[in-house]
């Protein structure tokens, strides 16, 4: 925490606070957040010189697709099913939403392969697991999207997929034939889940920085950190 020298005691200068005001959960959370995600690392001005490959662009391309996916989804949600089912403009936004899904998973697959080939999960295991989790959440969100479509495909996908879901015993919880529930799941719950998992994934990427090359020059690294 940067505090001007000689600053008076106050909430912004915890070191100068009397003991009974120290050690709050707020203070501990703030210190943990700032220690784990120093602002200069979250939004850095520079990256290591090895970040010089188009492979590194796939993550942000996936994110860009996700942004357009959410924005087009919001537009569809504002105008409702009748609009996307029967109008030309609504149909265009529905098609935009569909292609955004395609590109989202396409870039995600490329990103996954690139990350794997670079062994970027070294020292970044939670980041990796969050990535896999975001894929699973996104795939489920896509499935419920079909159900919310309310056209033939919705009818077909839901009546077929229900058998697989029923076989696991959670058919009562995830009833694809219950259009109301699936719509609210797809529009509210699942996108929130996807966005939270993706946000955590990105935060964890910034937390550790971009993974270095195998056999990088040891002089390029700070000394080993002691146990935290």
């Amino acid at each position, binding site marked *: 925490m940067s505090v001007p020298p000689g600053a008076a005691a106050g909430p912004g200068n915890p070191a100068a606070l009397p003991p009974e005001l120290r050690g709050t959960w707020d203070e501990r959370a703030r210190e943990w957040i700032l220690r784990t995600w120093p602002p200069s690392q979250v939004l850095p001005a520079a990256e290591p010189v090895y970040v010089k490959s188009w492979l590194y*662009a796939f993550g942000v391309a996936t994110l860009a697709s996700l942004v357009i996916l959410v924005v087009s989804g919001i537009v569809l949600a504002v105008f409702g099913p009748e609009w996307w089912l029967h109008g030309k403009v609504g*149909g265009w936004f529905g098609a935009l939403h569909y292609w955004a899904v*395609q590109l989202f998973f*396409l870039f995600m697959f*490329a990103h996954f*392969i690139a990350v794997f080939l670079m062994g970027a999960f070294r020292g970044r295991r939670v980041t990796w697991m969050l990535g896999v989790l975001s894929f699973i959440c996104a795939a489920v969100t896509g499935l419920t999207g079909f159900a919310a479509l309310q056209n033939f495909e919705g009818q077909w996908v839901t009546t077929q997929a229900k058998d697989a879901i029923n076989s696991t015993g959670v058919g009562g919880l995830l009833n694809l034939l219950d259009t109301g529930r699936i719509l609210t799941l797809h529009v509210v719950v699942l996108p929130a889940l996807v966005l939270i998992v993706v946000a955590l994934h990105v935060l964890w990427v910034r937390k550790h920085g971009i993974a270095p090359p195998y056999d990088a020059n040891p002089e390029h690294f700070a000394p080993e950190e002691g146990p935290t």
Partner: protein
Amino acid sequence: MVRTAELREVDSEPNSFVTRSFNLDSAIGLGKVVIRMNPVPSCETVGMFDLCAPARVLTLGDWFVVQLPNLLWFSAVLVLVVAGIFVPFPTRAVETERAPVPKVRS
């Protein structure tokens, strides 16, 4: 446009499903096919190009079946990865050195 005989419609509602016959001339010029469908809902799209024609299918052995658009999708992933590995990334003019680490070669 080749037309075949149409089945008698069961329901004379204007928007009901009719038997259709049409000339299948796919976008990649695979030749003309005429098929006669049983009454099914008609496929529409707002796009400029109508992709409603059935996709070309690739079959290997007795169980590997993939539709062309999906094959293109997977190919796009591979092309992206291969391009990402080999296409040079524009290098910056300025590189700063935080620690005095000598370059091996410039």
